[in-house]
């Protein structure tokens, strides 16, 4: 009846997991109770959960990413604590079977359920606004994508209290992840959760590639798109090409585990090298899926806060596309030590280094964007400069790893761990924090507290360097990764410094929450009434903060590369706005619970597959499919916003903008 599921699945013997699980459940129950008491459920249901508004979906993605960041960080600090304690005679507080789950969960969660939702969240929120359109190409599918991602996150976190998570690392290499070596449900949790969220990610890519290629404001030619849109396009093209590979790879491993196939097993003609190649054919582009939109955010921040257009726009676009293509030709650098031979290693090594060229160009373009500017040291600008200083060194260690004879001695070591955290924290996380501060007023109508924001920046910046520079040193000493126990007591001081660094990052995360709460509390003093709090250059700053559901009363006409900046300067010079257009009623997609109901059934199905509860799996699958059939036969597609409402809002907006422009023209 319940497959492999029994009371023994609850980790009564593991107090750490049990207590953590209970705390999580109680916190969630507390939040649910609070929302019920405040009677916020109807608001959440209509404005967020069932919303097809790209801005609301973007916010939900970012909330998911930030919540999962806390989970992923909890794993990180536990690992650092274990490695600081389990030295020499001591075994620390985590036995191997628990420690191995933690580092596997840390990697899986940080990549799939922190970095991906955060990056996709920004694309959702920003891209349609920057393109000057009202929504993405497929709004309902967008909602479904989000809830499928959330479904994957739910399953991964369920493994904390029901059963166990994989103990095979974040890529689940066979043969270790095969049934013969990992008989438990951990690897199944990993596989099923990633399959479900992977569907969501591919749907997102379909949506954004279509949106960017087919729905842009009049006059917004390709070479007038903001760089963030370009990097989002490149990133989504990468998702479209790479994620199906991941789906197939994981599906082959599932066939091995569930149906006794032999794709990657030791016996029956299987070959585990095949998995290594396939997973990295996805895995390397994945790095660029994350970092390209981050580069886009830095480009927006650099131009806005230097008060200058981005230097070398076309060069930047070309560099982005070059990275997009070359990133598919380098996957083998993840396993030079497999013994593929000198020619193969050298060619892939050189291909990997070539990516350093367009990346270097980008760094110089941001540098020359600041040159001749009026640099305002806001929080996002702190992150940009912090990123430029951090990322060049992360790039250096990356090129070192791309040289096969160097990789032969630092592969899989803590040097490698330090390198990818160097580029992911210095590149992606800093960008996410910059984007969070930069677009927060657009999303909610008030700015975040500047002083606390800077404190958060310094926590990340100092914490990162303290946490990861020691790992480079240990890597040189021959320290490898994923060690539950450290034999050499002389590593202790460096590991302790790394722990302190992680704790400082933890303080930064706490301060982020404090900053949010404090900013909400004092929001009336920090209202953004103009819709353009940073003196921006792209179209999202043309509309209100927060923007109306339909974004723009009339789709803006785009002249030139910096659509809003040109418009703003013309209006300041002429001291008037463009003539009032002829307002029309606006058709917008209606809300739909398709996404959350579908995700409910896929979660059931996924859970059932993990625990071999076949009747429930079939039920879940039928349910998920039925939701789509039901949605396809809907009668109502859109609701119409009457022209009076559009006109009233637009006139109010014109009045505010006029006042704002007067202020600007007087200040310059």
């Amino acid at each position: 009846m319940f497959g492999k599921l029994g009371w023994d699945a609850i980790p009564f013997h593991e107090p750490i997991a049990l207590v953590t699980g209970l705390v999580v459940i109680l916190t969630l129950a507390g939040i649910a109770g609070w929302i019920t008491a405040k009677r916020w459920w109807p608001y959440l249901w209509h404005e967020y959960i069932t919303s097809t508004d790209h801005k609301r979906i973007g916010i939900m993605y970012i909330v998911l990413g930030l919540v999962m960041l806390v989970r992923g960080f909890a794993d990180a600090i536990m690992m650092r604590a274990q490695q600081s304690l389990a030295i020499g005679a001591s075994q620390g507080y985590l036995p191997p079977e628990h420690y191995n789950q933690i580092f596997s969960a840390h990697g899986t969660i940080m990549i799939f359920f922190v970095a991906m939702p955060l990056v996709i969240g920004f694309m959702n929120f920003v891209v349609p606004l920057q393109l000057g359109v009202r929504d993405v190409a497929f709004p309902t599918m967008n909602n479904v994508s989000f809830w499928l991602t959330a479904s994957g996150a739910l399953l991964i976190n369920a493994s904390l209290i029901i059963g166990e998570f994989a103990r095979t690392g974040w890529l689940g290499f066979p043969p270790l992840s095969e049934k013969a070596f990992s008989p438990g449900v951990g690897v199944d949790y990993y596989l099923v959760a990633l399959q479900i969220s992977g569907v969501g990610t591919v749907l997102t890519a379909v949506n954004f590639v279509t949106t960017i290629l087919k729905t842009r404001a009049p006059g917004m030619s390709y070479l007038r798109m903001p760089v963030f849109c370009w990097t989002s396009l490149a990133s989504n093209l990468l998702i479209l090409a790479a994620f199906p590979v991941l789906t197939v790879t994981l599906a082959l491993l599932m066939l091995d585990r569930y149906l006794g196939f032999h794709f990657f097993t030791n016996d029956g003609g299987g070959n585990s090298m095949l998995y290594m190649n396939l997973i990295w054919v996805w895995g390397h582009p994945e790095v660029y899926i994350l970092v390209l939109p981050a580069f886009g955010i830095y480009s927006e921040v650099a131009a806005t806060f230097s008060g200058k257009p981005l230097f070398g726009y076309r060069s930047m676009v070309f560099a982005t596309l070059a990275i997009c293509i070359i990133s598919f030709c380098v996957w083998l650098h993840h396993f030079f030590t497999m013994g593929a031979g000198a020619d193969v290693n050298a060619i892939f090594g050189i291909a990997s280094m070539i990516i350093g060229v367009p990346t270097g160009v980008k760094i110089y373009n941001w540098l020359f964007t600041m040159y001749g500017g009026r640099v305002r040291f806001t929080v996002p600008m702190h992150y940009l400069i912090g990123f430029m200083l951090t990322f060049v060194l992360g790039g250096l260690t990356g090129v070192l790893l791309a040289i096969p004879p160097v990789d032969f001695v630092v592969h899989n070591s803590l040097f490698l761990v330090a390198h990818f955290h160097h580029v992911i924290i210095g590149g992606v996380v800093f960008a996410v924090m910059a984007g969070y501060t930069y677009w927060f007023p657009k999303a909610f109508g008030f700015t975040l507290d500047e002083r606390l924001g800077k404190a958060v920046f310094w926590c990340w910046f100092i914490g990162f360097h303290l946490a990861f520079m020691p790992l480079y040193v240990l890597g040189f000493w021959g320290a490898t990764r994923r060690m539950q126990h450290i034999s050499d007591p002389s590593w202790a001081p460096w590991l302790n410094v790394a722990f302190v660094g992680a704790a400082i990052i933890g303080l930064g995360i706490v301060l982020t929450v404090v900053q949010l709460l404090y900013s909400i509390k004092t929001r009336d003093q920090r209202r953004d009434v103009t819709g353009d709090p940073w003196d921006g250059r792209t179209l999202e700053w043309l509309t209100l903060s927060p923007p109306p559901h339909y974004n723009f009363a009339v789709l803006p006409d785009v002249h030139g590369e910096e659509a809003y900046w040109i418009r703003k300067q013309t209006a300041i010079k002429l001291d008037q706005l463009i003539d009032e257009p002829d307002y029309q009623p606006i058709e917008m997609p209606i809300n739909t619970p398709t996404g959350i109901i579908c995700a409910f059934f896929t979660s059931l199905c996924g859970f059932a597959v993990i625990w071999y509860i076949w009747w429930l799996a079939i039920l879940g699958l039928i349910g998920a499919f039925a939701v789509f059939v039901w949605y396809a036969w809907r009668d109502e597609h859109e609701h119409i916003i009457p022209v009076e409402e559009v006109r009233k809002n637009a006139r109010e907006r014109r009045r505010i903008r006029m006042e704002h422009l007067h202020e600007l023209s007087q200040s310059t």
Partner: protein
Amino acid sequence: MQARSGVAFGVGRNPVLGWGLVNSFGSFRDRATRRPGTGSALRLAAGASVFLLLGACNRGILDPVGPVGRAEKTILINSTAIMLAIIIPTMVATVAFAWWFRRGNKKATYRPDWEYSGAIEMVVWAVPALTIMLLGGITWIGSHDLEPSRPLPSPAPPLKVEVVSLDWKWLFIYPDQGVATVNQLVVPAGTPVNFRLTSATVWNSFFVPQMGTMIYTMPRMTTRLNLQADRPGVYDGLSSHFSGDGFPGMQFKVQALPPEQFAMWAQGARGQGGALDGRAYGELSRPSSYVKPMTYGAVAPGLYDAIVADKVAQLQAPQAAPPPERDSTSPPRG
């Protein structure tokens, strides 16, 4: 490290055969085997900066004891120096530009429309491109010189060692000596060692940081590796590819002995301890971790190939007829 090896074997003379080699092709490996002190100023500067960065530590891959590790360290330091030469100015410029062009600075010229300069574009594409071309050359030559399967040049015939990673310990078989060890690799100093490596369970990676290059051990497959320790000593070895719960206990020691001592060791080991036949191998391959070093005085011929072919059971069959005494064949458990 130095001190530890001194305690074990006495510091002794360095029988570094590689140093005397005529180097005809100027390859990294050969160059690295020359006496220290021939390095260029650039290398010294880079070395200095790396050591500054690391608080002048001298161990692990920065304290190589053989030609492979030394060549790899050279490439590491040279490449770092080449890149730092452009990265440090970039970092300085980042801070300088941001600070000089801060909004409050009245002396800085505001050029709100300056967004393109062909000359600068050319430089910013050329500088990284040239750097990568230089590093690409290093990569091409280095990858070929230091290809793990390439035999090391040496007048001495290489020692053959067959390596098997088990859950969670290392088995080293000496086919020519007819002995085998667990978690302890004994090699003659100054003699190349020619490894064939496989795994009897999941993937691992064989790594002795001070000797250089690591390589995967993979079930049903053989990888090849050539290393050499120039000076006698005891060096740490480990698995550097996660392989399950007992993974951190997969450490071993490498003892590099002067060649005559190695011959004595091999002689002495033969016939001592149990025999590694199919049955003893079955015992050994049961999961265990933090296993103390041990030695087998005899090895069933063809054991390594039988492990690669997953046919150890067949190997066992003919020997099953006279059941050996359990005590003599079961390895001492650590």
